[in-house]
Structure formats: C-alpha cells, structure tokens
C-alpha cells in the first residue's frame, strides 16, 4: 500500500534532490569523497525512497525492471569497454589513457594541496559514471525484486 500523502509528496520532491546529489557525488568522485559506488548507492536509495512511498503496483508503473537491468548491463559494459579501449590503443587493460592528455578529463594536476578541477582524472570520471549507472540499476532492482516476493504464495 502507499504511504500517506505527505510522505509521497516529500518522496517526490526529495527524489529529484537525491538524484542530482548522487550525480554530484558520482561526478566529483575524483575530487571529493565519493565516486561511482557511493553515488550509485545514493541514487538507488532515492529509488528506494520512491518505492517505499508508493505501493508496489504503482512503482512498477514508474520504474521498470527491464530499464534498470539494461542500465546495469550498460554500465558494466561501459566500464569494461573503457578498460578495453586501452588495449585497442596498444596499452594494457585498465590503462588510464586519458590522464594528462589534455583532452576530455585530461587536465594535469600539480602535486600538493589544491582544490581540484572537474576536468581532470582521465578515464576515472568515465569509470565513475559507468559504475554509478551500474550500481544505481543494480541496487534499485534488488529492492524491486525483493518487494515482488512479498505476499506471493508458493506456486505449482
């Protein structure tokens, strides 16, 4: 069943905030504490918040399992793909080929205390995004699947 109207409205409002905050955590993984896992977990918790505020039947109308599953696969493929590109470039698996290259995410960082700049880190932000997408999908779908088991009696 759904929770009361207040909780539902609060969840709706907070979901957006949590998503943008989770994406912030993912994007700034190489500058501040956080990263793909943490940010993905934050967003997935946001999804859990929406799931708890509404009933299961309503939720599966809003959040689709197949989309989440595809998201998870896509994140992982992107992660492994970024790592594989390095082989294509003639270096090793998981080589950070973008770091200090000057292109996207390729700014150099001087040694020592500094606030950091988003446009650094090489492939690390890409991997953060990939892992974030994967963890988001994975943890949200776990909760959805576990909810689907409630109240279902044994079949056949």
């Amino acid at each position: 069943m759904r929770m009361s109207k207040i909780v539902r409205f609060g969840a709706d409002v907070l979901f957006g905030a949590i998503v943008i905050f989770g994406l912030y955590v993912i994007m700034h993984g190489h500058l501040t504490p956080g990263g793909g896992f943490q940010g993905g977990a934050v967003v997935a918790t946001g999804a859990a918040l929406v799931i708890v505020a509404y009933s299961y039947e309503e939720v599966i109308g809003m959040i689709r399992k197949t989309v989440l599953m595809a998201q998870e696969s896509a994140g992982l493929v992107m992660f492994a793909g970024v790592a594989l590109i390095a082989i294509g470039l003639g270096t090793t698996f998981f080589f950070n080929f973008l770091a200090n290259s000057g292109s996207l995410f390729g700014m150099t960082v001087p040694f020592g205390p500094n606030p950091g700049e988003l446009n650094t880190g090489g492939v690390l932000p890409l991997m953060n995004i990939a892992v974030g997408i994967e963890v988001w999908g994975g943890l949200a779908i776990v909760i959805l699947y576990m909810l689907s088991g409630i109240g279902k009696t044994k079949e056949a």
Partner: protein
Amino acid sequence: MRKELSILIIIIFGLFLGLIALDLTFGEPDNTAMDDYFIRNGQEQAATNNIVTTIVFDYRGFDTLGESTVLFTAVVGVALMYRKLVRSDADENE
C-alpha cells in the same frame, strides 16, 4: 551439546583474534612503502585529487571490475530467485 561447543569455539576464536590487538599497534603501521608511493605519485599519475579513487579505479581497477561483477552476479541471482516460473519448470522433476 551444540551450545557448549559453540560457546567454547567462540571463546577460542576471541582469544586468538586478540592477538591482532596485541601484536599490531594502532596508528603506527609497520610498513607503509606501497601506500606512500600511492600518496606521493597518485595525484600526478592519474591527475586525481582523491587518492582513494585513484586506487579504486586506476591502480586496482581490476578489483573494481570484479566488485561490480559481484554486484551484478548478486542481482542476476536475485532475479533468478524471483523469476516467474513457467509450466515446464514444474514438469521437469529432476
């Protein structure tokens, strides 16, 4: 009988794990060579301020692939558990 055995083994384990509290000193690790290397060079090599992220995705990136795979495995496993059973599942009584 089982309860006594359990309590006994818990006590034995507690005693032996107490070794880690005796032998290691908190706050002053013995060897720090590898981590010193990370802290010294991580920022410039990977152009990253967060050394933890550098280790997670660059120096030990392969672990992270494995870790994501663990999550993926668990998710697919949970999906397998809650899948909708079809008729042929029940027919086959292997």
